């Protein structure tokens, strides 16, 4: 990275951290620290968006589109509907009860032990993922940029701890505004640059036709095939339940929209996301597709994996490596001719020629894909790293090699801002739950606000320290990211089941709900650990939620009969 890039990167990040600390330096109110205070709906909207968008969103999502197209966007289709339900039902109730922790609602509706169960589940899954939120982008950036891993993790972690300890939830909301400004403008600039670069080969519609011919504009899949990972129906149904649990029952998100001045601000902040999140995700994926088209015209490396890994494979057997790379180059050259023919056919409007040249593009595209897969397989075999995810390195490769000086620093700032924004929300939420649901609720009651503020700052620093330690000692990034998703899926459903029962089924009492939640949680864990039934881990959300509700109703019936 050039000096200019380093200057842009460090000044952007330092300015955001300094702003967060400076603006909240005089905050003395506990409520302001734990909840944030009187935020405008625009700040809430950006804060909710920044919490959800982690660094991996901006590193991996374009890479995912590069590899397999746009279908992933369907996962977000259920989200606006879930946000509407939360705005209509959850937000007014949370405001009415003046909640700081969303799990207080479980105590209000059921009892103290059910609240504690919800809080414990939250601390387990969020505590685990906070470390990964720092670790995952760090390992990708350090392997590409040659930075020291430990220094990167500690610097990012301490920066987040700095303003989160000083200003709590208030500082998190304020910094989110500027982090999202950096993120959105950086991504928009990258989008503009890739459009500009491919326009020297063909116009925008012709480039989209190339992406389509190569199977990368498969946005909507109307099939009812449950084996398919992304379809319209799984996106609407699965996305709805996933969003309902994430936005409705996860403190790291609820804390963001509950920091509003009124119900109105919280609702508008959520509707801001309901309107903009799907298009934003669509644009990030389209950016990945356009990078894919760019690398159809301009020769990419045969693999995007970082050079320390490829160099080791090359050193092991130079000839074998070279042969695989040559096969890729040959296929790429064939594709150049095919692309030229296809664009000419599109321009002349000759349907027959268009069909023939499209087939040529598809055949060459498949050959390129195969030769890349062969090389990747060889590298994995030689290096012994079978879980390497090449797609994570695509976008960062494009940024480092195709963007002008200055903008590279801005785009790295985008990625680190995203890492910091989601980590800050997690640390703030973890500290709030530790203080309100455990420290204040169970251990040290009736002390002054000042005392709880100090305790909350200490918890923020402790969770931050744990996240840094976890990131420093973690390894095997892919399996860890998957592990976070699995842990989330194993526990989210139980909490959602409890909240749905609490909100919508009046007849369910505290003992039934708590017992049902315990049984559901144990059942899901046993099924997962023993592999009795082989199902994708995302289904555990729905199964646990369903079990909590059905078992609660059955138990309630039994209790009712005994009492009668």
């Amino acid at each position, binding site marked *: 990275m050039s000096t200019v890039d380093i200057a842009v990167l460090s000044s952007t990040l330092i300015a955001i951290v300094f702003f967060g600390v400076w603006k909240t330096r005089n905050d003395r109110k506990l409520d302001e620290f734990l909840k944030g205070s009187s935020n405008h709906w625009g700040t809430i909207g950006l804060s909710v968006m920044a919490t959800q968008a982690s660094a991996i969103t901006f590193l991996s999502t374009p890479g995912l589109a590069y590899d397999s197209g746009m279908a992933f966007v369907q996962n977000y289709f259920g989200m606006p509907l879930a946000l*509407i339900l939360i*705005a209509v039902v959850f937000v007014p109730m949370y405001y*009415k009860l003046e909640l700081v922790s969303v799990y207080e609602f479980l105590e209000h509706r059921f009892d103290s032990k059910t609240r504690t169960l919800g809080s414990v589940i939250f601390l387990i899954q969020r505590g685990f993922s906070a470390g990964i939120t720092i670790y995952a982008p760090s390992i990708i950036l350090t392997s590409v940029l040659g930075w020291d891993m430990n220094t990167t993790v500690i610097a990012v972690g301490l920066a987040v701890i700095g303003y989160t300890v000083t200003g709590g939830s208030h500082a998190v909301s304020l910094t989110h505004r500027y982090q999202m400004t950096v993120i959105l403008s950086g991504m928009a600039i990258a989008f503009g640059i890739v459009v500009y670069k491919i326009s020297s080969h063909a116009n925008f519609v012709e480039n989209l*036709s190339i992406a389509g011919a190569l199977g990368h504009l*498969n*946005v*909507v*899949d109307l099939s009812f095939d449950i084996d398919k990972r992304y379809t319209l129906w799984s996106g609407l149904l699965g996305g709805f339940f996933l969003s309902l649990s994430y936005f409705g029952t996860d403190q790291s998100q609820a804390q963001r929209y509950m920091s509003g001045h009124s*119900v109105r601000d919280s*609702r508008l902040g959520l509707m801001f996301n309901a309107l903009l999140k799907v298009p934003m995700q669509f644009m990030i994926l389209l950016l990945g597709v356009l990078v894919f088209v760019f690398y159809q015209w301009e020769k990419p490396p045969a693999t995007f994996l970082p050079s320390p890994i490829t160099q080791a494979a090359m050193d092991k057997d130079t000839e074998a490596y070279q042969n695989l790379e040559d096969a890729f180059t040959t296929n790429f050259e064939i594709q150049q001719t095919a692309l030229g023919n296809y664009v000419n056919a599109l321009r002349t409007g000759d349907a027959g020629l268009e069909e023939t040249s499209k087939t040529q593009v598809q055949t060459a595209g498949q050959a390129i894909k195969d030769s890349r897969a062969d090389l990747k397989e060889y590298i994995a075999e030689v290096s012994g790293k079978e879980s390497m995810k090449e797609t994570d390195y695509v976008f960062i490769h494009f940024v480092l090699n195709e963007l002008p000086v200055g903008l590279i620093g801005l785009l790295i700032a985008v990625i680190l801002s995203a890492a910091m924004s989601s980590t800050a929300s997690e640390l703030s939420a973890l500290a709030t739950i530790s203080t309100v649901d455990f420290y204040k609720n169970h251990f040290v009651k009736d002390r002054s606000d000042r005392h709880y503020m100090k305790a909350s700052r200490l918890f923020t620093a402790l969770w931050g320290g744990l996240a840094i330690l976890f990131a420093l000692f973690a390894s095997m990034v892919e399996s860890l990211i998957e592990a976070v998703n699995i842990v989330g899926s194993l526990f989210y459903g139980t909490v959602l089941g409890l909240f749905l029962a609490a909100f919508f089924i009046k007849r369910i009492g505290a003992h039934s709900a708590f017992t049902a939640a315990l049984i559901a949680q144990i059942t899901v864990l046993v099924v997962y650990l023993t592999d009795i039934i082989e199902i994708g881990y995302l289904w555990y959300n729905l199964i646990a939620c369903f079990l909590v509700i059905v078992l609660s109703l059955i138990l309630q019936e039994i209790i009712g009969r005994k009492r009668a």
Partner: protein
Amino acid sequence: METDSNNEVMASVKAESSSGWTRLYVIVGFALVLQIAFYAWMTNTFA
């Protein structure tokens, strides 16, 4: 499944509802439908 429209949750929902909010939710839902229609058109046109 028994639900009680007079319970606390429904009371708070009613207290915070208005035709303005309903209109906004309909607009958000309609925007989602429009987007899906656009994406489906895009899929059919280019894929």
